């Protein structure tokens, strides 16, 4: 027994020495497969597009437009949506790398939670473009294409003021504020932009937030859930507006805007001035019918076109187009390709949608 132990021990020791002598195993590591800028890839390469979900119209449109525009640019599109579940999006991105995608467009559910999946993609030499939302907490991102989110908020705030002046006569006006889903990095920016316009008017007494809820955390709508926004509006109305009118509501998007209007109708209030975002079908109808005051249109087509333009530059091995803006994502400064959104009201709807036959049809219907 003793002898056996000894034999084993010496064998192990010899093995360890042998292994140590043989060096560090397979080499390569981090840089394996990594492509530097300038190398490009095939003109018909697979391009992955990972969208958060298809539950709102803008994402469903993005899916259709990526399919169309990537195909017409000669690429092979591979488009998936993740049902708003972060683990699924992580796995989808990894699966896209497995399927040989050369570039992946990511519309993140939570911009901070894709670090490992994106690192694996980067290590495999894949170019990564953030779509519509900032990708944070990782160096594995080559740029983000989005509509300026602070700018969007400013337009929403300004549109609310315009609407109040147009529809509700002289101030002061009673208003309430709503924010978007806090996990979406755009949501606080929308609110910040809107408040940069509204706060001075609150300070000088033109606007009165009757409930007193003006912090983003107080007004945020978890997961952009319309139902939650409607319940919050119901309780705000019940608690604060039994004896006074509500003149206007800041809404972060169209779904929430319609929830607010529904709630006001239910409580017997006159419809307040409500802005929106995304130019959804139902909201365009509502604006055309004189209910919702405005929406901010971020033409998905333009955003997708810009993204495809950047991918094409990568494909040819060129540098990404230069940008004026960049934003620190916690690790690196990410180049931001910011597009300017458009405010749509009853007055200019026909003009804005002149080359968008689907939406134009809504106005005629």
């Amino acid at each position, binding site marked *: 027994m003793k002898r056996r132990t000894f034999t084993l021990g010496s064998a192990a020791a010899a093995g360890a020495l042998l292994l140590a002598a043989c060096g560090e195993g397979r080499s390569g590591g981090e840089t394996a497969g990594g492509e530097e800028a300038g190398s490009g890839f095939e003109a018909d390469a697979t391009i992955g597009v990972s969208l958060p979900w298809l539950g709102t119209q803008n994402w469903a449109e993005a899916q259709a437009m990526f399919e169309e525009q990537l195909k017409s640019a000669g690429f092979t599109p591979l488009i998936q949506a993740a049902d708003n579940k972060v*683990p699924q999006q992580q796995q989808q991105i990894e699966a896209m790398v*497995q399927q040989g995608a050369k570039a992946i467009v990511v519309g993140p559910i939570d911009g901070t939670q894709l670090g490992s999946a994106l690192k694996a993609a980067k290590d495999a030499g894949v170019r990564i473009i953030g779509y519509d939302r900032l990708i944070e907490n990782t160096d594995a991102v080559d740029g983000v294409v989005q509509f300026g989110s602070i700018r969007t908020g400013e337009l929403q705030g300004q549109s609310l003021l315009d609407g109040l002046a147009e529809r509700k006569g002289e101030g002061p006006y009673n208003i309430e504020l709503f924010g978007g889903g806090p*996990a979406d990095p755009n949501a606080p920016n929308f609110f910040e932009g809107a408040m940069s316009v509204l706060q001075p008017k609150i300070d000088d007494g033109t606007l009165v937030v009757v409930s007193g809820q003006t912090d983003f955390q107080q007004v945020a709508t978890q997961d952009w859930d319309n139902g939650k926004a409607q319940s919050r509006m119901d309780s705000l109305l019940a608690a604060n507006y039994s004896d006074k009118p509500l003149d206007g509501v800041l809404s972060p998007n169209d779904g929430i805007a319609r929830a607010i209007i529904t709630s006001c109708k239910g409580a017997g209030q006159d419809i307040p001035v409500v802005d929106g975002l995304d130019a959804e079908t139902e909201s365009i109808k509502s604006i055309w019918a004189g209910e919702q005051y405005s929406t901010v249109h971020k033409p998905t087509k333009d955003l997708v076109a810009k993204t495809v333009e950047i991918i094409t530059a990568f494909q040819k091995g060129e540098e990404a187009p230069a940008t004026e803006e960049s934003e620190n994502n916690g690790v690196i400064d990410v180049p931001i390709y910011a597009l300017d959104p458009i405010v749509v009201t009853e007055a200019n709807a026909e003009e804005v949608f002149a080359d968008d036959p689907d939406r134009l049809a809504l106005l005629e219907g």
Partner: protein
Amino acid sequence: MNVVKQIFGTDFRQFTMVFALVVLLLGFHIASGGNMLTPGNMQNLIAGNAYVLILAIGMVMVIVIGHIDLSVGSVAGFVGMCVALSARDLSFPWWAALLTGLVVGVAIGAWHGFWLAKIGIPGFITTLAGMMIFRGGVIWLSGSVSVPVPPELNVLGAGYLPEWGPAFTNLNNSTLLLGILAIAFYAWSQISTYRQRVADGETGLNFTAVIIRLVLVGAVLAYVTFLFGSGRPGTSFPVPGLVLVFLVIIYHVITQRTTFGRHIYAVGGNKQAAALSGVSVAKVHFFVMMNMSFLAALAGILFVARATSAGPTDGNMWELDAIAAVFIGGAAVSGGIGTVAATMIGGLVMATLNSGLFLMGVGQDKTQVIKGLVLLAAVAFDVYNKQQGRPSITGRLFGDRRTSESTTDSTKVAPAAPAAPGTAES
């Protein structure tokens, strides 16, 4: 025929679930144009699903005692957020943040255990309350904003084993070593079981059958080793997978080889009888619930480590993924039946479906429908068999030896070999 039986077990059909898994893997491999059984994809599959499988380990024990835990997703999210916040706001080093998370998990488990074991509120209700409490807690604590976790933790959720030793193997040598150890351990356990049975005077045993089984399982393990080890340099069998294998072995031993494990099955099978036989039902309830939240904490930490940050919606609906894995693995809703190993197979079936459908580019809509149907089919198959008086999938696969050659005790089960927990003995 007798030899075949000894190779594959008393009933060839007992391999149904494992067989289904293999068919799925091969089917998707072909359908996705060879993208399924690649090192990268398998590494992703294990690393990306480790958190659900860890939850399922605890969940099968909860379901065996006849309860259910709806809070695991919320608890995982809450613990992940505690880890992130303690590191960011209290400047804890990564290991202290990790320990904090585990302690919080155990404390939450003790809370659930207290209401179930001492007060007697059914687990369904205790944990439904927990689901709301800790979901609210995570949103409250975080202010609905995602919080980054210490980068050192990333290894735990997305790391690989080191590269070392000779390069001529063309494999990751850490993975190779694990594979060799797994094969050696399996061989040792099979041969010593055989010797034990011969020594017990059992007749009609065929040593050739043992050897054939060894070769077959060894070949599978070798293939798995090759699959995980031959990825891009720098990759290996993933670290979260290693954590999972380690837990599976530990919990397999606890549930199948210890007194406490037998008490779990006794309480789940017939609470009154167990109590009359001197088993402390309250103690079993308490520890199983506490253990569940501990594992949920671990799953939450693994997830945030992989995601690189903790978010307010982490853990949403994870409980349902874990519960699905347990029932596909053949556990009974009424309690008393279900094993860790079978649950892992159930979880891997779901994970494989997910991964394969991603690779084929099938949308989330259809993926959900398919997963729902698979769950229903697996459980229906089980229920049908039970009504026919035949053993369930679980019985066939792992558990009950009542149909076998009588001398072995009814809870004896083959040791789970890493990455191939479905390989049952005779």
